[in-house]
């Protein structure tokens, strides 16, 4: 695995070099061809993906209807935060759009490292909270449906 690529990801850049090194054993490079289901709603959430190249569609399936894309993630984004929460189940489907290259961080390994080092834990959680907050802001704007009545 090319650790320098891992360190270049925005998520890892938030950490000190020493903290980032501790997460290297948790990571492996993964690649997905186009239209691959990366994870499925309801399945155990055991991984966080750091997207290096490509796009991932987050989909919700509604019975009797086609899937709806609710968000897409891209280079530099973190895919998969459900492992942070007690149910640890994916709440959406994630599907590759085109070829996707990412680092997969094992959640159990990540949690183990975080439990060992409260400073690392705080740094990881701060980044995750920031990512969640940014997505919350986007969802708020999406919910406003601002284009429905013209400009």
């Amino acid at each position, binding site marked *: 695995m090319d650790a320098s690529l891992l360190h270049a990801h925005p998520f890892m850049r938030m950490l000190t070099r020493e903290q980032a090194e501790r997460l290297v054993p948790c990571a492996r490079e993964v690649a997905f061809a186009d239209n691959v289901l990366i994870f499925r709603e309801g399945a155990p959430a055991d991984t966080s993906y750091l997207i290096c190249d490509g*796009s991932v*569609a*987050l*989909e919700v399936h509604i019975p009797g209807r*086609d*899937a*709806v*894309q*609710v*968000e*897409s993630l*891209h*280079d*530099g984004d973190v895919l998969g935060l459900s492992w942070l929460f007690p149910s640890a189940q994916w709440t959406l489907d994630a*599907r590759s*759009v*085109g070829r996707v290259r990412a680092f997969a961080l094992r959640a159990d390994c990540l949690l183990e490292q975080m439990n060992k080092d409260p400073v690392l834990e705080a740094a990881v959680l701060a980044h995750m909270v920031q990512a969640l907050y*940014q997505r919350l*802001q*986007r969802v708020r*704007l*999406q919910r*406003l*449906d*601002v*284009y*429905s*009545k*013209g*400009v």
Partner: protein
Amino acid sequence: MLPTPMRVARVRRETADTVSLLIDAAERPMAFRPGQFNMLYAFAVGDIPISMSGDPERTTEIVHTIKAVGAVTEALCDLRRGGWVGVRGPYGKSWPVDEVKGKDVILVAGGVGLAPLRSAIYHILAHRADYGRLAILVGARTPGDLLFHRELERWNRRDDVTVLVTVDRAGADWRGRVGVVPAVLAEISVDPARTVAFICGPEVMMRFTIREAARRGLTNDKLYLAMERNMKCAVGFCGHCQYGPAFVCKDGPIFRFDQLVSRFWLREI
């Protein structure tokens, strides 16, 4: 102040609820600057300000892109080839395409807000060497609501233009971005020292975009907004579009953000 009756030369349906009216101005060429608007009068219904969405170099065919959202816009959207429309204008301040020569330009459009920016896009592309990098960021409700999608594809094929499109929601068959347009601004590289942004869309979308622009290091004097208020006379007499000390019709609709930031966040005006 009297509208001039002009013929509709062509009608181009852009989406289910949006059309472009191409008005024949061969006998009365109309020079305009990117971002300016005309008052369009649907006879017996009323008039409404609509920005020019066509090429400023083409003064004999004036294009307006209109979304049917009310009585006047519905009447305008119902016009057919050969129909008559009253035209008064052009009015208002334009996008500062001369002032920003040499700069990287980011255009951020939400919904039908792409229409007033399209004339700026034509201008920049016609004088491409005068500008740095050009990024066109477009947000729409769904893929079916995207305006000018063929042109967006054509511009995206150019080496000297970045086009990023996002929609608020889409089916699984959509292969583009899903999310809001301010998030797309977070994706592109920005050199704050040499970048300006033109922003046009619903005001709430512009607020979110301004916050993202600030995160990217763009100061208020680098942002230009197209403001919308209830414009009636279009020449600053009637006061309908008063916005603090300014009239949107006369002093705008394009404002540099540092010149209106003190009242932009006020809810009372």
